[in-house]
């Protein structure tokens, strides 16, 4: 890439026609022809791009095309029906409800998870004793290890474990609550009551992810020179002020990246839901778009319609990422660095 650019610049700058330019471009061309160069391009550019086009771009293009058809998914035949799948989608109350659930999750899950992760990360890196070197709480490496545990367990297992914990009759949670004398929780269906189901599910997702984002933030904070924190401390900043004015601005790009990753997860959430609420939950309060897409495609045999759902989901995901970039920029960040 650099070579290409500099070659271009050389030829562009040379306004007076002369030997220099010819030599430059000839040298560029000759160098380009070497086996090294060709094989390099082949291995690092052509093959990956071909794979990307073949296995990522083309399925998306095809899915987008299928969303304009009435394909059932089980025949090679399909009719082009224009945008009517989309028209149907935006009058489909179940899908709109699923979309609403997803959007709510895309805001609650990242904010709570990252808030907690930031809090813990601060504690174990710079939140320790205010005397001596900048350090975390005592035994911070122990906390760091155990908080990562949930992330090691596959999401589906987390879902299954928690569906047992939430079990109304034999579950751990109601067992503890009733033992504490809270009789109103006898046989209370955490996942079956429309008031609690979505929060119960979000809690599981947050529980599973806090550790990972905590470790991510710890790594970022460790990259900040300790002198900065020391200077802040000498100026009289307390722990909270340090976190708000020093830590977060300095690791802003990590926070943005984390936000986008976890937001995408919350917009998907299929695995957690498959284990916790395979039926969409009470009054569909935990139904997510991915679940609705799956049922539409495989149980109802409406692949065209399901593809339209997929396209909408992808658009929402992109819009979400755009929103996170925009918010970060409004508050003074440079999103380009986030890459």
């Amino acid at each position, binding site marked *: 890439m650099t070579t290409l650019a500099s070659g271009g610049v050389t030829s562009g700058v040379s306004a007076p026609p002369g030997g220099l330019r010819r030599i430059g471009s000839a040298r560029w061309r000759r160098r380009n022809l070497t086996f090294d160069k060709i094989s390099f391009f082949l291995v690092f550019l052509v093959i990956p791009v071909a794979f990307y086009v073949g*296995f*990522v771009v*083309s*399925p*998306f293009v*095809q*899915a987008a095309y*299928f969303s304009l058809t*009435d394909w*059932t*998914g*089980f*025949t*090679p*035949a399909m009719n082009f029906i224009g945008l009517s799948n989309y028209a149907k989608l935006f009058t489909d109350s*179940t899908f709109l409800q699923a979309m609403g659930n997803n959007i709510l999750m895309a805001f609650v899950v990242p904010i709570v998870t990252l808030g907690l992760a930031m809090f813990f990360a601060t504690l174990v890196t710079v939140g320790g004793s205010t005397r001596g070197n900048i350090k975390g709480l005592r035994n911070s490496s122990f906390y760091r290890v155990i908080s990562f545990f949930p992330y090691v367990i596959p999401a589906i297992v987390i879902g299954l474990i928690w*569906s047992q914990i*939430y*079990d*109304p*009759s*034999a579950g751990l949670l109601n067992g503890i609550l009733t033992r504490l004398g809270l009789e109103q929780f*006898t*046989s*209370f*269906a*955490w*996942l*079956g*009551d*429309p008031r609690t189901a979505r929060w119960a599910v979000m809690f599981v997702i947050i529980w599973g992810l806090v550790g990972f984002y905590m470790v991510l933030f710890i790594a970022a904070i460790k990259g900040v020179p300790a002198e900065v924190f020391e200077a802040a401390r000498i100026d009289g900043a307390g722990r909270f002020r340090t976190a708000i004015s020093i830590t977060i601005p300095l690791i802003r790009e990590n926070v943005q990246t984390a936000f*986008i990753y976890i937001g*995408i997860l919350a917009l*998907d959430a*299929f695995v957690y839901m498959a284990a916790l609420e395979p*039926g*969409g*939950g*009470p*009054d*569909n309060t935990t139904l997510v778009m*991915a679940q609705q*897409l*799956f*049922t539409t495609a*495989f*149980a*109802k*045999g*409406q692949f065209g*319609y399901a*593809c339209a759902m*997929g396209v909408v*989901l*992808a658009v929402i*995901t*992109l819009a979400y*990422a755009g929103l996170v970039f925009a918010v970060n920029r409004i508050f003074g960040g440079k999103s380009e660095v*986030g*890459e």
Partner: protein
Amino acid sequence: MDINSRPLGRRDFLRGSLAAAALAATGSLAACATSGTGTSTSQSSAPAGQVSDTNPFGVQSGSTVDAVIFKGGYGIDYAEFAGKQVEAKQQGVTVKVTPTTKVAQTLQPRFVAGNPPDVIDNSGAGLIGINTIRDQLAELNDVIEAKNYEGTVIKDTLYPGVTNPGTFDGKFIVLNYALTVYAIWYSASLFDQMGWTVPKTYDEMLALGEEAKGKGKYLLGWGKEAATYYQTMAIGSAIKEGGDEVRLALENLKPDCWSLPPIQDVFNGLKKIIDAGYMKPGGSGTVFTAAQAQWSDAEDFILYPSGGWIENEMKDQTKSGFKMTGAPEPVVSSNSKMPWEALHSTAGEGYIVPSQGKNVAGGKEFLRAMLSKDAAVNFAKTKLSSTIVKGTVPADGFGSTALQSQIQMLEKAGSNIFSWNFVDLYGMNTDQLVVWNSFLSGDSDVAKLTKGLQDITDKVAKDDSIKKVQVS
């Protein structure tokens, strides 16, 4: 760049399922575009073998039968057994039995590519909606009109009405193999011990609820994925009460079908039981197998509406001495149009033969083997469940009280056997579960339940893109 591509990259299952399908589809799509024809042109390309009494479909010697079998509660060994029978009877034919747990996901690309298996056991949670593929299936009338391996015409060996659930718009295309009896299940030993009798009406059920409460037990219970078992029971009761009229209104997705008096009576009967607190609370948050264990193992509640598979499903979680026994679903009043003994029975494990398969005759021969005595008896004996073939279960039910009672219920019902298809046919169960969970947990009332179910029905009825099956 990285971040922007990430959202798309994460769409694993769009990519996973569609990429495979789409890639497989491209070839045949192109072909379709040029030829411009529809599908379902039966192309039994394999040269037919000699048709004879012992080879009624003309299976070609040396051909292979590609059977894809759902591997669920019944396993696949019974299908392998039938495969061996085919190989023994038809010289040089090989049967390849492949198990799958997700039928639709596994076979969808093969249907698109026009290369489906010769015979499929289309069952389980991930089955292919029959409505989606019914144009591509071979009619199976010749299978039941053929003679089995013992020389009797197969049709004459089957229980009455077993081909109805597999018949769509007059075409018999799905052979449902395992006979399923829907009933209310209870422990005969517990009932004897307590001196209880099986309730025949909703009022009797309510009264039994009171008695059970005295013993510290609930009457009924449910699990969140199986809330619609109560819908199955309610529809069964309503059909007994109001006759075929009710069944046809539901099957044909008639406006206000859920408001018919017999259905409303049943809903009100259930509501009384729920309001009286005889339903074990918390079902909408309980995994259904855990809920079923509360009945079969802990005996927290005493009646459970389900299909005959319940015994096999709960085999490891049934209290010893629990004599699992079934009784027909209750009626509303003593002057119901069908007697209490009338039975909701249908057949499950839907076997289909795609008309585009390479060896359609082989697929049919496989079904013929399954319907012959050896394979049917083998199934009944190893799965403790009857096939649609009569007379394969001895009086002792191979030692199973549940199987015994199924056969007895079938005998008592005589020709009063009914079933319906609309729930599975239009894939309504997922939506209905939501409505039923809130009804059973006492959060909604009969009016809300009726409206919720009617909305689901109307949505399908009004959607022109869904092909409807006219039932009469």
